[in-house]
């Protein structure tokens, strides 16, 4: 008799209202393998895995663990079955130590023996080569260490099936390599792993087998050794796509936005940007690279007049009048009144760039509500713009008054990017403009940005995918811990070099 699969999912179906997130999915995870679950955003990967970890309950279908039918109705049930999931957003208590977080929520009789727990954690760490200290508080840890704590947490609970939801999104290339080593070590130890990702090179690097989802359906699986980037993309998208970004040479770049020794502190008095200086040119795309939380958000918000600046200057060179003006101390309204056409796609879409409870029209008005004399707002022009974006970017929504909060992430993103580009800016800033978008739309956005660049707009592109940054941008500013660790030519530098710049500051600290 063959060894039963670690997990077998049979006809799993999950619906949200009219949306079928998972449509009769049959999937297997073999014992001791690393399976990549690949699919575009919104293809149902996380939903499917959440049914294994007890967060959602399937509407139809049956799950088998090690050959036995099980019902998983809560995260605790999942742990009882030996399934542990490491979520994209960490679920840790900042002021607790690693040990306290790991044992949090465990049941048991009598007094809890924290020391014994510490020893067991130490043993797990030694076995797989994790470098965390059990007594270290979470707030003292780097992102990668926090992730390690999450992994130890599920191992401590005896999980032999691990699910990792986009674990590399927050890691540098070097940290990613380390994580992959750990995954291989766990596999050698007999654990079965599923990694959710949409980065193809990672799939090819770490996994044994790839399962592909598309629009809630199970497309099929291939052995990794028989696959390549193009074949996987075609499976994911459903038709052949070309993965090249057109990067024309910048046409006559002129300084547009000059940052001089910009330093900002947050509410708690922590320095977020430290002496940042660089120049963004009109007619080029300037990429900003860095590990998440290196000051990207603060940088863009400072320029937009939304973050208090402690010292330094942001000089805007007006391409029409030829005048130069310092933007520090101005709020968004002042900046607009000064004649600066600034568009901004912030990272937090619904918390900053859009009004979740309003429809597309109401959100178009965010940029135009002040126009016109008199106390009443004009709805007609925003309505037209909303209709235009609806059609042009193929936004999926029942109407222009449907609350954007209830649209899918990719559509929300289209509404925001569409509106900002429609402002005909002279500076266009975007933070993670393609996060949550499918491949086709991502490339459409890259083309839109390049189009803006060729119109002479100064485009500042904060990105997380180094491959894209290196293909799309003309120059790169690399941030590390709030400092600029390098301004480099994106056409000449390699990914590894950028990765080193991204962590340079940390290495120095370690020495």
């Amino acid at each position, binding site marked *: 008799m063959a060894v039963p699969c670690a997990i077998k999912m049979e006809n799993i179906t999950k619906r949200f209202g009219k949306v079928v997130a998972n449509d009769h999915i049959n999937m297997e995870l073999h014992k001791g393998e690393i399976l990549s679950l690949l699919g575009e955003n919104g293809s149902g990967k996380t939903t499917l895995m959440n049914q294994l970890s007890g967060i959602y309950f399937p509407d139809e279908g049956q799950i088998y663990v090690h050959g036995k039918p099980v*019902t998983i109705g809560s995260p605790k049930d999942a742990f009882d079955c030996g399934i542990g999931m490491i979520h994209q957003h960490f679920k840790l208590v900042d002021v607790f130590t690693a040990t306290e977080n790991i044992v949090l929520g465990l049941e048991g009789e009598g007094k809890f023996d924290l020391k014994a727990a510490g020893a067991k954690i130490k043993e797990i760490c030694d076995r797989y080569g994790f470098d965390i200290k059990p007594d270290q508080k979470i707030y003292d840890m780097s992102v990668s260490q926090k992730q390690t704590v999450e992994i130890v947490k599920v191992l401590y609970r005896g999980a032999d099936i691990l699910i990792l939801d986009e674990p590399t999104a927050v890691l540098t290339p070097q940290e990613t390599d380390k994580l992959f080593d750990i995954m291989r070590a766990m596999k050698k130890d007999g654990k079965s792993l599923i990694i959710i990702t949409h980065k193809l090179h990672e799939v090819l690097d770490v996994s044994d087998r790839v399962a592909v989802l598309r629009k809630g359906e199970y497309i099929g699986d291939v052995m990794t050794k028989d696959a390549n980037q193009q074949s996987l993309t075609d499976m994911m998208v459903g038709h052949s796509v070309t993965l090249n970004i057109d990067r024309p040479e910048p046409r006559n770049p002129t300084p547009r936005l000059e940052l001089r020794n910009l330093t900002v502190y947050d509410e708690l008095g922590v320095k977020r940007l430290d002496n940042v200086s660089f120049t963004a040119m009109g007619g080029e795309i300037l990429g900003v690279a860095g590990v998440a939380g290196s000051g990207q958000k603060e940088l863009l918000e400072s320029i937009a007049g939304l973050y208090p600046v402690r010292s330094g200057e942001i000089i805007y060179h007006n391409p029409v009048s030829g005048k130069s003006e310092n933007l520090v101390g101005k709020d968004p309204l002042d900046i607009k009144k000064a004649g600066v056409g600034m568009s901004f796609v912030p990272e937090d879409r619904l918390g900053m760039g859009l009004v979740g409870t309003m429809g597309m029209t*109401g959100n178009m008005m965010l940029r135009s509500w002040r126009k016109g004399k008199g106390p*009443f707002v004009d709805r007609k022009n925003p309505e037209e713009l909303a209709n235009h974006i609806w059609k042009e970017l193929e936004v999926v929504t029942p109407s222009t008054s449907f609350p954007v909060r209830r649209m899918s992430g990719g559509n929300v993103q289209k509404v925001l990017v569409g509106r900002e580009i429609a402002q005909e800016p002279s500076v266009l800033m975007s933070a993670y403009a393609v996060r949550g978008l499918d491949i086709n739309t991502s490339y459409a956005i890259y083309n839109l940005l390049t189009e803006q660049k060729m119109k002479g707009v100064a485009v500042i592109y904060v990105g997380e995918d180094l491959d894209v940054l290196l293909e799309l941008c003309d120059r790169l500013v690399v941030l590390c811990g709030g400092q600029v660790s390098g301004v480099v030519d994106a056409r000449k530098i390699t990914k590894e070099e950028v990765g080193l710049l991204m962590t340079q500051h940390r290495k120095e600290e370690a020495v």
Partner: protein
Amino acid sequence: MSTPEHSAPLLRMAKRGEMLPAWKAWGIRVIALLLSLVVSGIVIVMVSGLNPAAVFATMFDGAVGTSKRAWVTVRDAMTLLCIAVGLAPAFKMRFWNIGAEGQILVGAIASAACMIYLKNLPTPVLLLVMICASLIAGGVWGFFPGLFKARWNTNETLFTLMMNYIAIQLTSYFVALWENPYGSNSVGVINSQNKQGWLPNLFSSGFNKDFGWNVIIVLTVTVLMYLYMNKSKHGYEIAVIGDSENTARYAGIRVNRAYVRTIILSGAICGLAGFVAVSGASHTISTSTAGGRGFTAIIVAWLAQFNSVVMVIFSFLLVFLQKGAQAIASAYNLSQEVSEMITGIILFFLLGSEFFVNYTVHFNGRRGQR
């Protein structure tokens, strides 16, 4: 590893994928209202053994049975509506103005002061002065919490609540000052002989002769507020701030300025409600002039989801329930608590129905596991 037995969850709730059409949403609310009547009927039988149909008839009769009663119901509904309309912009902006009680009281004090000290002015002028005075008084009462919130980010809930106590003390002071007759510890009906500063009746004769100008004033304010909230630039700012302060700043809205401006407006209209209560209804002032209506109005505003036109319905419903409950209490010699239970049951169902408007519930029978 052993595979433990787990049971599937019995029921699961899921957010609706798309908005319900309006008729369905209202259908759910009407069903909830009917259900609440059934349940309160059962409670009535269990508690008192009375025929629920007769009890409901008494309720109806108590609220709108005669022209006089109908007018009192309308009058009180108008006052409640005015307060709810005043609260709407503040709450829509997520500024928790629970200081309507105080704002009503200061508006009422201002109106009463005009009635006492300026009674020689011609009636239309006097009424106009009273309206302005009550608006200003309420606005000032709103201004301070707004200013402190904008400047020092103080908690507006506590601040507005504490302003209520100041207003109550102020009212006590003026009641003592204007005491009439001496030693009664109340102000008595002001200008009872010549009715200076009383809102005149709308019609001079006929069935409706009781009806006063309250209706016109409050409905005008309601419609104006509807336009302000839905069509004006200020209304747009309020909606954006209520959703996300960061988005508002991103869109170039001066958030602090909008806070102060809106809370002044909110307080002013609550002050106007004080005028409506004094000049249009009681013609006197006491510490119970607001009578908890500043809090009841919060329920009205939320039930109507800050749509001032929909608030008309809910103001009437709440006042109707209150009057009906009082009628049952006196007709059947029940304690006030029983009638309040009925009001509570009805509100519970109405508020609870919003859950079913926004969520669907799946039951997991055997059939669920195919």
